[in-house]
């Protein structure tokens, strides 16, 4: 049994962490309002991380999904405010899985070098992802409808839009965003941009058809995002640990109070269980295992819970200081909810998890 990452992947993750330690320091805060740190984004583009899981033929580095996962973990740990996910986690895996040769040749090189930032456009307002909530239509080679919120929607060049065709069938469409009207929205995590996109007969083409394709795209993205969540959760836990070792109350370190120790032990347990699920999910993705959708859902549920728990308890351990604008605690708190919602909330994924178990038992 070798349930561990390859040496190259581990090195890529460590190298990313090393770069981000300085390059991303303070970046999330600087990005407030803008939703991106331009200097950091330029740096990240230059490092080739976006193409980690893209074949060399399309300008990628063929490092592989394992490597991309550990880069994602480093990005999550540093709260890097860059439009990385839409291209690297959503669009590229979707194009590699479903795209025609022409679509791959047209889009993958730009995603790999960062000249094309991509956005995932499924949501049309409140509610969990579901086929019947899709009101955007595709007719005569063009999309019409309103999508919001769309992460990185204002700066992306390409969107993967979920829409319905004339026959009512839902699918994923590739839509260049030139000429599409976009409005920036105030984000829950202001270091990440969200927007409202109004498509009005915007040219687009079909990438993949059927709700199961939508879920397949979401599931791949969920695995990579789980690693960002793990990175964020781990960093939040370490911040709490460090503060608990420094802050004194009642004549002792607050880290010596069991209420604090046991809380942090519980966070540690949640993170380790989530890490194990994420490991399995990346394996299942690479091996195209029949239980991949379930594995992705479990990884998503576990990682979401771990990051949200870690971020909330970190504020708690920091006391009043943790509630201030100037402390970094709220950056993690905000990011934890941003990542929890960006591919559909936890309830949606729990339902997928149980549904796939029912399907397995029925088979």
């Amino acid at each position: 049994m070798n349930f561990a990452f390859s040496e190259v992947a581990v090195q890529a993750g460590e190298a990313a962490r090393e770069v981000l330690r300085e390059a991303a320091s303070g970046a999330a805060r600087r990005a407030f309002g803008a939703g991106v740190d331009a200097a950091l984004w330029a740096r990240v583009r230059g490092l080739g991380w976006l193409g980690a899981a893209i074949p060399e033929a399309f300008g990628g580095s063929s490092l592989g999904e394992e490597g991309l996962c550990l880069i994602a973990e480093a990005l999550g740990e540093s709260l890097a405010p860059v439009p990385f996910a839409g291209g690297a986690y959503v669009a590229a895996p979707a194009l590699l899985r479903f795209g025609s040769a022409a679509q791959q040749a047209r889009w993958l090189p730009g995603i790999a070098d960062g000249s094309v930032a991509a956005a995932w456009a499924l949501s049309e307002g409140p509610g969990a992802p579901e086929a019947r909530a899709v009101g955007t239509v595709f007719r005569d080679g063009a999309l019409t409808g309103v999508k919001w919120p769309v992460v990185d929607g204002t700066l992306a060049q390409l969107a993967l839009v979920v829409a319905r065709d004339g026959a009512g069938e839902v699918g994923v469409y590739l839509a260049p965003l030139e000429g599409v009207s976009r409005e920036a929205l105030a984000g829950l995590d202001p270091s990440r941009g969200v927007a409202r996109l109004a498509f009005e007969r915007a040219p687009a083409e079909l990438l993949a058809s059927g709700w199961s394709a939508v879920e397949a795209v979401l599931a791949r993205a969920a695995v990579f995002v789980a690693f960002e969540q793990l990175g964020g959760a781990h960093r939040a836990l370490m911040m709490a640990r460090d503060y608990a070792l420094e802050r004194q109350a009642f004549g002792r370190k607050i880290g010596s109070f069991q209420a604090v120790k046991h809380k942090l032990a519980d966070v540690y347990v949640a993170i380790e269980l989530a890490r194990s699920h994420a490991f399995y999910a990346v394996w299942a993705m690479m091996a195209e295992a029949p239980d991949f959708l379930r594995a992705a859902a479990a990884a998503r549920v576990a990682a979401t819970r771990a990051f949200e728990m870690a971020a909330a308890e970190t504020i708690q351990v920091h006391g009043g200081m943790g509630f201030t604008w100037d402390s970094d605690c709220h950056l993690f708190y905000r990011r934890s909810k941003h990542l929890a919602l960006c591919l559909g909330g936890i309830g949606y994924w729990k339902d997928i998890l149980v549904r796939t178990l029912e399907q397995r038992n029925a088979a």
Partner: protein
Amino acid sequence: MDFEDSPEEAAFRAEASAFLEREAPGFGGRGDVAAAKAWQGTKAEAGFAGITWPRRFGGRGGTPMQQVIWNQEEEKYQVPRGVFEIGLGMCVPTVMAYAEAAVCERLVGPALRGETIWCQLFSEPAAGSDVAGLRMRAEREGDGWRINGQKIWTSGAHFSDFGLLLARTDPSVPKHRGLTMFFVEMGSPGIEVRRIRQISGESNFNEVFFTNVWVPDGQRLGEVGDGWRVALTTLMHERLAIGSLPGPDFEDLLTLAQEIAIEGAPAIGNAAVRERLADWYVQSQGLEYTKWRAITALSRGQMPGPEASIYKLVSARKIQDLSGFALDLLGEAGLAAGGRFAEAWLQSPGGRIAGGTDEILRNIIAERVLGLPGDIRLDRDKPFNA
């Protein structure tokens, strides 16, 4: 990443599973001590007992990875093995680490072949989590020791032949420093075993009274006053057992939720039920994958550290919650249900206490993994009898 065995591992697995396929069905479903002894003997004869133990004591001289593979294969059969877990898992390895060769030669082989059973005599009425606070007194007398006091919660003492005994040899020094480890023959004059009835109604553990029990100095393990360090060896072996606690698992609950109806439809369609099922899947399957990570580390020669506390902490609680929820799903019928969920629910509180309570395990993670300060110990540096 892959889940394949190496060629050597695969060969061992094939050998193990062929043996099990041939021999295990004959022991299926039997839980009595005699059957357990017979099964242990059968394993030993074929070289599947003491897989990591040295050959000179009758072990296989194999790797921890082979032990894991053996456990995985053996778990597929309902063979009786529980009565040996404490002895072969913790007590005898401690003997091998500290006793002289002649003593090992005399004791290890019979234990391995299932001819003798060992129990762990650590906990006392006044010393459980804080086991170093124990009072059982061992006083020097000639070329041996005179032992008086009481142990409690000793699993299997009523059918054990030997016990690993932690006793106080010097009450005038701080508690951790005045302890010494011995092994004792449970048939020695002055030892009295009394069964204790558990909440489930069964009696698997005991009180053990020592009245002027004579133990020769040759049965001492480690130096006088070094018992705490020896005890840590025993407790470390607990971590190597990357097994699973017995009891209903997630799949049993899933099946129940598909069978039971709520408002005329299978319970699994109920949103609240689905939510809980998803949570437990994440817990139980997450633990399984965490074991795979530990096994990977083990196969690379790394020994499990304090992070291994996660297994029992998560699984003991999970069995309690999961079986309790299964009873809830049964509704009023749960009132009358015997069966595995009721049984597991009654057993489960013990799992959260035995072998380190939930709270002690959280302390271990907080202190030894996360590096937070130890608890304040008011008695640590004081002489025990002060």
